């Protein structure tokens, strides 16, 4: 195993070719040493008899065909794991960068992870209260869910993720153990710093494991960052029994890194130059959220992606939406109206919501109220487009009521302060207060019984 090969046969972008190797395995990790001093890692992505095509993490800038020694490790990419990883900061491929030295590990685990057997999954049903009305009320987050943020450049997705970390009972007051795994891919330094500060302020820093691949770090490492982070998350969740929230930002940078490698491998591109296996590749990441039957912990994912040009049909948000269990969509118009969080509820959705709300978890009227809020808000949009043609004065009385309702809904239901933490009961009561602005006949998604129970009530303060 310790044969070292001197020299390379070709270098092309992040890919190098090594010929004359023996016993090389598909997908194994190789170590390069450049000029006998600098160490780099790479991964075998294709093999032909005695020829290996290797993808180098980090840049290939100082490598030449002569100055590089290559050693096969005989194993896939692994990271060391132990309870010590909590509170630590690593680079994109799991090497400590916080000057606290190496992690003494209990075990090493393959970062690729095997697919979880569908019969071993437990269907997620536990509601997580985030304190944000738009999410709790309309796109409820469930423990073990993967709920991405579809955002755009300059929208406050990071602030919202941070607020969820602060408010989602991740802090004190529960007997269960919570933790956060944070994976940054190609984000600016200040975003990484912002999250670190948030974790510090909310007192969870010693329960956070950070994996940082910032914008200036090697692009290729980004391919491994979410895998490394999720391996750590699975260890914390299933081996240590913690409830882990994984925040991955920015998935767009990840996909672009994938495209870059695909292009240098000269693969046939599908849409917008992204490789045909983008869906499978993303699924390997997102599907690692969940709950394993019989184990105490869970992995909940909030991947954040910036939609290029705010286009939801772009392959990255599109394929993500097909894999994840819903999405929270940010809207630039609402941002323009200074509404925070600027969540456009109509395209937003939580697929696991139906199983995790209702009498047992939140309140019996939750589903019906949510449906009605969606339906009424879509009427608001219709009324607005009509008003923009014929003027507000010419509208029918009901349409006018919808306009008033829409304004209050956006300002006060969607909108809330960055430190405002509303309970689900407050959210639902407030929803009824809004619905009372509309005539009872208009509320066609709520059955008669619930209307009798709630519509007539004045809000008791």
């Amino acid at each position, binding site marked *: 195993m310790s044969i070292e090969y001197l020299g390379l046969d070709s270098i092309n972008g992040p890919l190098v070719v090594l010929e004359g190797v023996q016993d090389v*395995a598909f997908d*194994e990790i190789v170590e390069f040493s450049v000029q006998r001093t600098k160490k780099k890692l790479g991964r075998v992505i294709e093999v032909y008899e005695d020829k290996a095509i290797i993808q180098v993490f980090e840049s290939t800038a100082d490598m030449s065909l002569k100055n590089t020694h290559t050693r096969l490790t005989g194993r896939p990419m692994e990271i060391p794991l132990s309870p010590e990883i909590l509170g630590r900061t690593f680079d994109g491929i799991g090497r400590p960068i916080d000057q606290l030295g190496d992690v003494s590990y209990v075990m090493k685990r393959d970062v690729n992870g095997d697919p979880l057997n*569908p019969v071993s999954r437990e269907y997620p049903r536990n509601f997580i209260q985030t304190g944000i009305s738009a999410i709790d009320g309309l796109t409820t987050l469930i423990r073990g869910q993967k709920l991405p943020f579809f955002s755009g450049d300059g929208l406050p997705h990071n602030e919202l993720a941070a607020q969820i970390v602060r408010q989602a009972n991740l802090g004190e007051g529960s007997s269960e153990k919570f933790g956060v795994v944070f994976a940054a891919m190609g984000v600016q330094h200040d975003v990484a710093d912002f999250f670190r500060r948030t974790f510090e302020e909310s007192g969870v820093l010693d329960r956070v494991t950070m994996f940082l691949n910032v914008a200036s770090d090697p692009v290729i490492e980004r391919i491994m960052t979410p895998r490394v982070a999720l391996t750590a998350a699975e260890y914390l969740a299933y081996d240590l029994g913690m409830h882990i929230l994984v925040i991955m930002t920015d998935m767009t940078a990840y996909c672009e890194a994938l495209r870059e490698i695909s292009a240098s491998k000269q693969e*046939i591109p599908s849409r917008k130059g992204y490789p*045909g296996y983008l869906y499978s590749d993303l699924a390997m990441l997102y599907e690692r959220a969940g709950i394993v039957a019989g184990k105490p912990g869970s992995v909940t994912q909030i991947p954040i992606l910036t939609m290029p040009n705010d286009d939801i049909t772009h392959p990255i948000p599109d394929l993500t939406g097909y894999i994840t269990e819903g999405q929270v969509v940010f809207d630039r118009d609402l941002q323009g109206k200074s509404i925070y969080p600027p969540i456009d509820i109509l395209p937003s959705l939580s697929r696991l919501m139906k199983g995790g709300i209702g009498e047992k978890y939140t309140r019996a009227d939750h589903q019906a109220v949510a*449906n009605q809020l*969606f339906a009424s808000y879509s009427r608001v949009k219709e009324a607005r487009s009509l008003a923009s043609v014929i003027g507000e004065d010419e509208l029918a009385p009901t349409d006018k009521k919808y306009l008033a309702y829409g304004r209050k809904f956006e300002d006060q239901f969607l909108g809330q302060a960055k430190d405002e933490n509303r309970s689900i009961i407050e959210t639902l009561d407030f929803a009824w207060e809004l619905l009372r602005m509309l005539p009872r006949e208009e509320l066609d998604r709520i059955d*008669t019984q619930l209307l009798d129970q709630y519509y007539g009530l004045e809000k008791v303060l």
Partner: protein
Amino acid sequence: MKQLGTIYGINGPIVYLKGKTQFQMSEMVYVGKMRLIGEIISLNNEMTTIQVYEETSGMKPGEPVYGTGQQMSVTLGPGILNNIFDGIERPLKTIEDQVGQYITKSVQVESLDTERKWPVRVTVELGQEVTGGMIIAEVQETKTIVHKSMIPPNIDGKVIEVVEDGDYTVVEPIVKVKQLDDTIVEIPLAQKWPIRVPRPVRRRHESSVPLITGQRVVDTLFPITKGGTAAIPGGFGTGKTMMQHQVAKYSDADIIVYIGCGERGNEMTEVLEDFSELEDPKSGNSLMERTVLIANTSNMPVAAREASIYTGVTLAEYYRDMGYDVAIMADSTSRWAEALRELSGRLEEMPAEEGFPAYLASRLATFYERAGLMQNLNESEGSVSIIGAVSPQGGDFSEPVTQNTKRFVRCFWGLDRQLANERHYPAVSWLNSYSLYVDDLSVWFRDNVSPDFINNRRQILEILHQESSLMDIVKLIGSDVLPDDQKLTIEIARVIRLGFLQQDAFHQEDTNVSLEKQAKMMEVILHLYRQCREMISMGMPMSLLLENQIFNRVVTIKYDVPNDRLDLLDQYLVDIDQFYNHIMETNA
């Protein structure tokens, strides 16, 4: 098993062997020291190409490849129902027992339990002439379904030995048959069949019986036949999976084959949990007793995803051969098409549209053509209906998978993003969906539901189309300026949309509705329409009619009239007449 080659190169799920090898095309092979399952997909003088159904990481050039001499096949026999398999028919529960919660590489498991003894009732006699497809034994496979083991289609001859009724495993021989060429074959309960070859039938029939799904928008507006094909295209979040679940739960098929092809793991868990608890409306037993799940979730190996569709349809054909009506839910065929694309890309084939291989259309065609109402080799009649979800990229129906699917299906239930955003579920668009089976079914509807059914259905669609063109005007100038008869059209269309098309999957009464109730609801709505139209033609203003609560009462029929109290619906007709008389008396 003998070694027939050594690995030359590895690129993801594609493995190459150098030189001329003795493998056959489509042969199932075991690859490498780990013996991963693979299939030969191309052969030439220089190179043999294998598609491997498991992760290949850790594999090295120089490792052996073993041949089996057989095509990629599935095992057909009792034990398929109430079970969950991966894309190449490996039982996931057994895998869990063997290797734990993660599916690791090179798990060797039998498709069907070979130890379990089934109580068998033999139905052939010594000396009897038998031909392919003939039933030799019956087994109560689940509480709901009697399994009928058959002579494999390619065997013909005379029974020279037969066992007594009793308990046998799926591999013990039940009969020995001496064929015409004097060879003797032993036939156990289970048989193998290659997944890419349709099981032979006597002939194909035209179907004139609907597959009743309990979903109003499907059964009434865009019905499908037993043996028919339908596509459900829709962007993410429009409710494809939900609709597949509803049809799987409530359709009147005997057997459901649910293929989760490249979809979410949690969805399969949900189906497993839900279906085990829910009661089959036909038999009263648990739904899983008539269901088989094929789960190849999106994080499982991509090559097996490609195979899962064929595995599913082969299982379905097997039960059809027993004379059952089988419905396949394929969720989602786009993932299957993408698996084709991914493998094609790795093979460096010349891409056609959007990177999909040029043979996409022909593969889709061969899949959907395996549906149909058939007269089987044993003269029984059975059907396979295929309902395939399509996940168009960017929700755009003009992409290749949706377009090519449209060519081969006769029902198109297009899901609409706008409706889904309004939380109008099922979000089947009444403007761009269609069913080409309506004419074939009209006789059945006339004889079995109501003579007016087809006519009423047409009227409902007409009103909806009129509304849609009126809405173009309303969006510009508001509804106030419309004449009263057009206001009525808009109001009735609202009643149809909310009270008829929208169906609440979580409401106990509304989740599954009999055709009889559907027909009556339609009648009530149209009666209201006719009476109102008459009043308006006599000069009554629409605003006056709207003061009455009758419209909202008709909307909530779906909740207020329980499925076993259809007599209550007659009261609505009476109330509408009273409403008419009342208005006419007080305002005439």
